């Protein structure tokens, strides 16, 4: 315990180690938060969800906090139903089972750009006679624009921008511009807008509800993608996936490499020769192409890829380093003593030889984590990522295939890249410092 404490004290002398520790800690905190806030099954459902889950979100929306820094304030998306503040529903019962239902949505619009779309999701209940609605638009300068009127089905979506007649009424302007444009004819008019739905029902107990969905051009903490998905889900869930992949792969690789190197060094002869030859073959095996083959021919599951990665990474340069050290350890006197009193080979290897190497193992494990974290992202960028998991690499791939760089949707690529960089750099810096602590040879250089 004392030596751990000493190593830790040694470690925090390096500023890069502190930075690394902090970012690794943040990453673990993010992963823990992700798993608590959005349980695994729910995350998968959300990530795989289509329009039915994400209809409330705009497409390609940048994060909302961009508005704090931008000169041109972009409209923020929101959703209202009858119970929200700013909504008002008045029901007047009339004669012959008819009733008038007036729903008014009041909202403040103080942005410099036009929104993407406004939708009304009607939910009416009736038996035979359809309710009828008229929709009006009240601007801050007290103009009243008739949007449309129609009989409502029990479930109906009304997209304001797709109403051809409205385009004509707005003298050819796109509805989203026509409804918001101010006197100058270019910029939107700021102020309080109202959307009024005047409905009539013709049956007893018949009712109309409408959900008001406003698709701005910015949304949430990380924005949305081409499928209206909230990028918070993959941004959060990328952390546990990346950590699990990186840590398991690097730990698995290092431990197996060490065991195999120890076996080779201990038994020598053909075992050692075989290990050497496998390492040579593995050197010319195109690691990545083989992963691609496994990904395309068998399975894209992260676990299969992880297993293959570990298998292919065991027989690399590391095995030679460990072997040469084990060769020295094998000759040391305490091993000779153990042999003399008849200890079994497995006990010598696993209890006497390998534990001595743990100080060497730790920096190795930590510094190879980034490579595996990025490997997962790389595979995802090639379209070989796990089809169900929301990951950072997946996000970059989606962004790239949807031309985010050409369209200027930089947020889509930057957010996952920054998190990838943070995790990569964190582990790399920590590994660097650990290497110096555990390998005194490097300390002075």
């Amino acid at each position, binding site marked *: 315990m004392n030596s751990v404490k000493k190593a830790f004290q040694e470690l925090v002398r390096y500023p*890069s180690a502190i930075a*690394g520790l902090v970012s690794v800690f943040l990453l673990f905190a993010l992963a823990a938060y992700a798993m608590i806030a959005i349980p695994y099954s729910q995350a998968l459902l959300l990530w795989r969800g289509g329009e039915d889950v994400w209809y409330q979100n705009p497409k390609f929306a940048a994060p909302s906090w961009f508005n704090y820094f931008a000169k041109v304030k972009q409209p923020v998306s929101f959703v209202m139903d009858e119970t929200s503040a700013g909504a008002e529903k008045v029901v007047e019962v009339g004669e012959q089972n008819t009733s008038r239902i007036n729903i008014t949505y009041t909202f403040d619009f103080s942005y410099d750009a036009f929104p993407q779309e406004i939708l009304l999701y009607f939910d009416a209940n009736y038996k035979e006679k359809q309710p009828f609605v008229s929709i009006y638009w009240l601007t801050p300068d007290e103009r009243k624009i008739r949007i449309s009127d129609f009989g409502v089905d029990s479930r109906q979506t009304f997209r304001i921008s797709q109403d051809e007649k409205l385009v004509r009424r707005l003298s050819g302007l796109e509805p989203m511009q026509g409804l918001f444009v101010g006197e100058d004819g270019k910029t939107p008019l700021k102020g309080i807008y109202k959307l009024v739905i005047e409905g009539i029902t013709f049956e007893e107990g018949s009712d109309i509800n409408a959900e008001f969905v406003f698709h701005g051009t910015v949304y949430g903490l990380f924005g949305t993608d081409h499928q209206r998905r909230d990028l918070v889900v993959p941004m959060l869930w990328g952390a546990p996936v990346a950590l699990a992949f990186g840590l398991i792969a690097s730990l698995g690789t290092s431990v197996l490499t060490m065991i195999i190197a120890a076996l080779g060094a201990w038994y020598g002869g053909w075992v050692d020769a075989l290990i*050497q030859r496998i390492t*040579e*073959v593995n*050197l*010319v*095996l*195109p*690691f*990545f*192409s*083989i992963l*691609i*083959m*496994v*990904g*395309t*021919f*068998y399975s894209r599951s992260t676990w299969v890829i992880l297993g293959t990665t570990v298998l292919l990474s065991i027989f690399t*340069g590391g095995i*030679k380093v460990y072997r040469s050290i084990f060769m020295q350890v094998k000759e040391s006197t305490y091993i000779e003593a153990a042999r003399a009193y008849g200890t079994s080979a497995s006990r010598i290897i696993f209890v006497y030889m390998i534990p001595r190497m743990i100080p060497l193992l730790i920096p190795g494990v930590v510094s190879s984590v*980034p*490579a595996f974290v*990025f490997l997962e*992202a*790389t595979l995802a*960028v*090639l*379209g*070989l990522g796990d089809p169900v998991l929301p990951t950072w690499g997946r996000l*970059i791939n989606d962004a*790239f295939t949807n031309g985010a*760089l*050409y369209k*200027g949707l*930089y947020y889509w*690529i*930057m957010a996952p*890249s920054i998190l*990838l*960089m943070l995790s*990569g*750099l964190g*582990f*790399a*810096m920590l*590994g*660097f410092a650990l290497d110096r602590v555990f390998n005194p040879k*490097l300390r002075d*250089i």
Partner: protein
Amino acid sequence: MADITETTDSNLGAFLKKTSTSTFARIMRYGLSRLITLFITVVIGIYLTIMIANMGGYVDTIMRNEIRERITQSVLTNKAYQDMAPETRKKIAQDLILVEEKRLRLDVPVAVRSLNYLTSALKLELGRAQNMTSDNGSRTVRLILLERLPATLLLMGTSQLFLFFASVYFALSLSRNYGSWIDRLVIALSPTSAAPSWFYGVFFILIFAAVLKILPFGGMVDAPPPETKWGYSMSLIKHLILPVSALVISAFFISIYNWRTFFLIYSSEDYVEMAKAKGLSARDIERQYILRPTLPNIVTNFALLLISLWTGAIVTETIFLWPGLGITLYKAVGLFDIPVIVGSTIIFAYLLAITVFLLDFVYALVDPRVKVGG
């Protein structure tokens, strides 16, 4: 790699040892023995590749399907059979398929057949692509791949050479100014090499193509390609800048750091102190007393670096739409074109082996132990 070199040299070179003792012959002998071992290694590697690709019986299924389709088509369109009853025609087709499968030796056991595949794979004779065509319109896998080879070689060759010389130069000057702020900066930046080249590529495209608009997003030449030779090369260079910088930057700081460490270790040797005491010029000391003994280490280190650089090439090419082997592999994955996937894996194995061989050869040239035959 030094380890491999020594063991194989003693194994294979033993019988050649007596023939000659001149330096040239020694290097040739070393090169030859390395070539033979590497070839054996490549053969085993490609055999493994085939086994992986065929483990689910994929290669067989492709071949069987192709035979079935070809023969059924030819029987259907053959005028001589047109008056026959459908059953008879079916029977004829079935028999022909069996004969064809026998001819292609699909009836022999997997172990024997895989050896047949191996020989054709070594020659890159992988038949026809399923969905892809080369720019010349050929569907032969070999042509599709060989057509792409020059682009990849240009990109990788440029970046590898640039990386090597730039980092050796910087490492030397840093070891001279050991402890200066620039030295510390490089040490601080060396963890950035954890990110692969495509990652930097994305940022470079973002900065230089999307925001500043001074360099192209990707591709190899302007469209339409310039007609003069000079214009063509200029356009090529313009398109090379970003991918080469991405490849170089991803390995730059870590290699400077590693090599600077080698230089520092060697510059504290006694014979360097001796040379200093004799009053030799700093240049001579650097060249003769520090660089010479470090070079074998550097070459070995560089070889390992290049192997990881090749791996990154696939995605870097994809990101930059560089028309090389990597993007071909990426497209083949998208189109599920199995012969092309297997073919590019094999060609990458060859390229890796050639890289290893060339560096081994350089190693032989710079390592006095090989020259003298230690």
